[in-house]
């Protein structure tokens, strides 16, 4: 029956099924494993946003950014500073100005986070984008570490980031007066906070996906891939490679900033330890394993590497408990094992990823 449909209708049907699955996913997952699992789903969505951003930089433009998590950190700290009591506690003058407290709307935080992260991307990229690929990777790694060290230490001389302790009491997202941090009732349905965030994140992922797909199939997207394939030839065709690489950096960073801001509001807390090199590598592993430059592949990579460790965490602990009477291997270690193996095996056996871009004949 499906075969008798025209390709266009089949595509629409597929999209419809996918949308239904997206809407139902938290209910199915939540029914099977409870709210913890929906929370995992929420984090997977944040990773998808991050990975889609990194995919623009690594997948399209071919620039290996190993400090990508820094942009996530920039967005997260911006959200934390603008919607927590921290700044007001530090600066009484500010507190006098804002007697109701610092509660910046998410509608302002998201674009600001995107802009600030994009700005950081440009500032980092401008001097470094002429570097050869592997040097660029190490420089971006250094940049990521510098940001983290700054976040750890900028509690002196003026307390901006609150140092290693991090910033707590970040406001949850509030949309049109609905607080996503609390369970809400809708048409008699009880929607716990993790469900509400799920729908918000899904909406933003769809938005970012939409942007990525349109970018990929545009003059800009073609120029990016051309740069990745042969930078000198792209220049000879009149592509201003420096400007286009900067654009890739900025857009990728903006997506990172948006997801960081959402992360801060979702967690209610940020600290420098959420933004280590290992997180940058985790996002890179998702992009590489799934398929650099291919959106469905990247999403597959995220789902595999974000959900699988959680599944392990949930299953391995009790399993070991049952078998050996104690937890011998920390699930966190197993998670890292997976990331390491994913990177090596992908490079050796599937350099284009598990779900590479369909090859034109």
């Amino acid at each position, binding site marked *: 029956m499906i075969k008798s449909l025209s390709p266009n209708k089949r595509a629409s049907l597929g999209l419809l099924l996918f949308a239904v699955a997206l809407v139902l996913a938290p209910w199915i997952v939540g029914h099977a494993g409870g709210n913890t699992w929906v929370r995992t789903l929420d984090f997977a969505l944040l990773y998808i946003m991050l990975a889609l951003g990194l995919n623009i930089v690594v997948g399209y433009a071919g620039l290996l950014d190993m400090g990508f998590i820094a942009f996530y950190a920039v967005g997260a700290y911006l959200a934390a500073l603008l919607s927590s009591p921290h700044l007001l506690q530090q600066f009484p003058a500010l507190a006098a100005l804002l007697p109701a407290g610092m509660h910046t709307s998410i509608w302002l935080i998201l674009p600001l986070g995107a802009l600030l992260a994009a700005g950081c991307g440009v500032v980092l990229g401008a001097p470094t984008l002429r570097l050869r690929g592997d040097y660029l990777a190490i420089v971006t790694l250094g940049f990521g570490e510098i940001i983290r060290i700054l976040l750890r230490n900028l509690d002196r001389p003026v307390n901006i980031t609150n140092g290693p302790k991090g910033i707590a009491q970040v406001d949850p997202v509030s949309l049109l007066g609905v607080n996503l941090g609390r369970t809400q009732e809708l048409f008699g349905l009880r929607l716990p906070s993790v469900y509400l965030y799920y729908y918000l994140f899904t909406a933003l992922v769809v938005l970012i996906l939409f*942007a990525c797909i*349109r*970018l990929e199939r*545009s*003059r*800009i*997207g*073609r*120029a990016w*891939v*051309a740069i*990745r*394939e*042969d930078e*000198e*030839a*792209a*220049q*000879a*065709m*009149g*592509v*201003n*490679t420096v400007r286009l690489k900067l*654009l890739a950096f900025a*857009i990728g960073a903006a997506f990172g900033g948006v997801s960081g801001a959402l992360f801060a509001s979702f967690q209610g807390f940020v600290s420098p330890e959420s933004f280590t090199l290992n997180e940058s590598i985790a996002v890179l592993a998702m992009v590489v394993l799934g398929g650099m430059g291919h959106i469905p592949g990247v999403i597959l990579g995220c789902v595999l590497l974000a959900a699988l460790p959680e599944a392990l965490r949930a299953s391995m602990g009790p399993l070991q408990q049952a078998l050996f009477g104690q937890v011998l291997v920390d699930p966190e270690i197993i998670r890292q094992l997976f990331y390491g193996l994913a990177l090596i095996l992908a490079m050796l056996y599937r350099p284009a990823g598990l779900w590479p*871009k369909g*090859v*034109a*004949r």
Partner: protein
Amino acid sequence: MNAPLLQIDHVNKHFGGVAALTDVSLSIQPGEIYGLIGPNGAGKTTFFNVMTGLYTPDSGRFQLDGRDYQPTSVHQVAEAGIARTFQNIRLFNAMSALENVMVGRHVRTRNGLWAALSRHRRAQEEEAQTRAHAHRLLAYVGLAGFANYRADSLSYGHQRRLEIARALATEPRLLALDEPAAGMNASEKVQLRGLLEKIRDDGHTLLLIEHDVKLVMGVCDRISVLDYGQVIAVGPPAEVRQHPAVIQAYLGASAHV
């Protein structure tokens, strides 16, 4: 004589203490196929790289269509109107043949970030024109049926043609080809010659840097001969062939002049 399309005067280029180009000048008329030949290491490729912005010359004046251009960056030279191909073919391998040519349109189109995201009417029109233009060029070089093939899946001869189509997509005033016959067999060379003549007859100007003296002598309207970084002869093939300095330069290279 008409005003030259490309006028390059007194180019010098040193690498360390070695003079790679000494006082090289070149003048190409609109609508001709111009050849630049010379034995190995004569400075052909260096000159080519200087003129297309890859190397910065020590001195020299560059004019295209009566206007000065500074070969300071590769993409600006392309924008000014010189498109090139590469000696060892350099296509965007993971892209289709059509997309390769569409990248060539980059410099003559304007769609930016907002156009990509919003796909407003003008953006869609430009995209459609880009696509149609690329299809026309593929057909023009004889690759009409290959639009959706990956560039690296094409045969060698087809890849050469695709590179030429991609260069033509930038609407160049001058099409500069770096050893287009390299690695081709006899029948491919005949076809290439036909294509080059067709491109010229359609009003384009071509500069050919070529090892294959027979091809150059057959297809070019005028020729410059480089040796040791200096121009030793200029003129139509029949004259250059008789030039004592040229015979001298090529004797050691055992080429059939």
